[in-house]
């Protein structure tokens, strides 16, 4: 147990530092070490380091941590290892909220209506995650209502409702993007596949408090979340207020997903894959899973982003393509392992 945590600790220290060495610009190791320890002497290197690479690694870590924690939380409260912000429509809901905000404040249509001039860039950028959060909350509660009223409250019904809502809201948000700008292919690709290419350091200052507060709440409620693993009735007999806990957890998932999706697009499979690995490697109780997801999810995303940057010369692969490719192979392996 201790060795595993020590290894993970080393990985957390080594991954962001290692990832700083990769990028389009040719920075030598000595220059990078100088930038980290004493500050860069060359102003170009200074800009590359502090405005491109470091923010990207930092935001990448937060994105991986947040998505993995959101997935793990959804899996715990639904008692279903296949739950994930993507399958539950949370990503699509956040995408819809962000698309509506984009249509209203950052599109050709908005330009024609004179709305863009009313809002400076920064306030739009801050309104974006808020709109995404509202969209994510909307989808979460839509899934809950559909699952309980239309189908019944079983977990598999919730998954079905989640998939239905996910498709419906994705279609809506793509249509809205098309409305705002008929040649909106780039934006659609961004929402579908995600990217860290446009990351700026202030994204981290929005994400950091959301991820930190969410993780803190989930750690505080760790014992309550564990009780849910044996079912709602079991948790109630231990004094847990199940409905309240479920609403709180869903709101946390919505907040985490929204702040990530609104800046980095939809990145799939992280919320599904990382909790799986953490549970089989470190343990299944909620506190261990949450901490493990923060650390491993963060490192995973940092390295996936490195791969996205260096895999093809002179261009970047959207990060969602890599996570989906790794995720699908991972699940084929898990399935074959189970069969054996």
């Amino acid at each position, binding site marked *: 147990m201790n060795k595993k945590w020590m290894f993970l600790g080393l990985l957390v220290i080594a991954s962001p530092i290692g990832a700083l060495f990769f990028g389009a610009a040719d920075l030598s190791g000595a220059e990078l070490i100088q930038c980290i320890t004493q500050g860069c002497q060359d102003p170009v290197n200074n800009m590359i380091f502090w405005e491109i690479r470091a923010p990207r690694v930092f935001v990448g870590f937060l994105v991986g941590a947040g998505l993995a924690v959101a997935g793990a939380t959804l899996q715990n409260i639904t008692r279903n290892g296949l739950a994930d912000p993507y399958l539950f429509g949370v990503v699509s809901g956040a995408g819809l909220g962000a698309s509506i905000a984009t249509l209203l404040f950052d599109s050709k249509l908005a330009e024609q209506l004179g709305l863009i001039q009313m809002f400076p860039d920064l306030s739009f950028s801050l309104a974006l995650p808020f709109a995404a959060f509202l969209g994510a909350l909307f989808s979460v509660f839509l899934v809950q209502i559909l699952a309980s009223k239309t189908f019944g409250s079983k977990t598999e019904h919730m998954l079905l409702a989640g998939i239905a809502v996910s498709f419906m809201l994705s279609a809506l948000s793509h249509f809205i993007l098309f409305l705002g700008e008929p040649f909106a292919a780039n934006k659609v690709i961004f929402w579908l596949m995600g990217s860290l290419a446009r990351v700026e350091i202030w994204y981290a200052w929005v994400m950091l408090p959301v991820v930190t507060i969410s993780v803190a709440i989930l750690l505080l409620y760790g014992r309550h979340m564990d009780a849910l693993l044996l079912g709602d009735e*079991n948790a109630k007999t231990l004094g*847990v207020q199940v409905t309240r806990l479920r609403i709180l957890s869903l709101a946390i998932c919505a907040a985490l997903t929204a702040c990530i999706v609104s800046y980095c697009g939809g990145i799939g499979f992280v919320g599904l894959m990382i909790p799986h690995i953490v549970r089989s490697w470190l343990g*299944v109780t909620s506190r261990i899973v949450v901490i493990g997801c923060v650390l491993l999810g963060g490192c995973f995303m940092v390295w996936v982003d490195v791969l996205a940057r260096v895999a093809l010369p002179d261009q970047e692969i959207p990060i969602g393509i890599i996570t989906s490719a790794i995720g699908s192979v991972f699940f084929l392996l898990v399935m074959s392992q189970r069969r054996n």
Partner: protein
Amino acid sequence: MSSPRSLIATNVNLKIGQQQILSDVCLNLGAGKVMGVLGPNGAGKTSLLKMLSGQLASQHSVSWNNKALTDYDPMSLAKQIAVVNQLNESVFALDLYEIVRMGLLPHKSLLSRQTRDDDKSIGDAISRVGLDDKVKQTFNSLSGGEQQRGLIARALVQKAALIVLDEPVNHLDIYYQHQVLRLLRSLAHKLNITVVMSLHDLNLAANYCDHLCLLDKGKMVAQGSPEQVLTSQRLQQVFKIPCQVSLNGSNAAFRVDFYPPDEVEIDVAPFIENPKT
């Protein structure tokens, strides 16, 4: 005013839709007693247990420790009453220790940590149910009897004065049936814990319970000691099968024997495939 730590139900009624599940059920059970709830399928046993444990709202008709269950907040109720429902699989591979540790939940605030005393109480509870060698084994890989004992250990960590169990010996072989019931009886008599459970086996109920309630169609048919409740005539009336109740002289054990009703010829022809011609 009744004695402290007694479980009192006064005219408990439960109606779901148009169906009356429980009608005017009354009972009074003192501390340290083992009560068995008996009755045929659909008699209302599980519903009564849920009312007695606060899982179903009882509108002030059930009280524990001189206080209506509805007046307890969820955490205070969990400190008083532990529930062992029919076995539930864990979706993720929780081990026995983690399941038993859940019993600490009602006693811990969000910020409090697990102390050495908590570790000791978990270890003691696991030893008491005889599962020391299974501590790190995943809960789902334990046998039915071991899982049941694990959940009883969790109830002990919960430090509840009343343990309510829904068919605790269901699916267990005869060895584990006696083991689990012997454990519950010894907990009740030695630690003064009140135990309420539903049972299908009348012989086990007669020999391990101090007090029995016999339900039929949601109504209390009889309650009292096994000698008072288990009479041939009453059981025949409730279960619709001829039976005989006797007392085994050598160990004073109760014995209830049911006899199959008169043979009725059942036409099995429709269930047999047509022979090939």
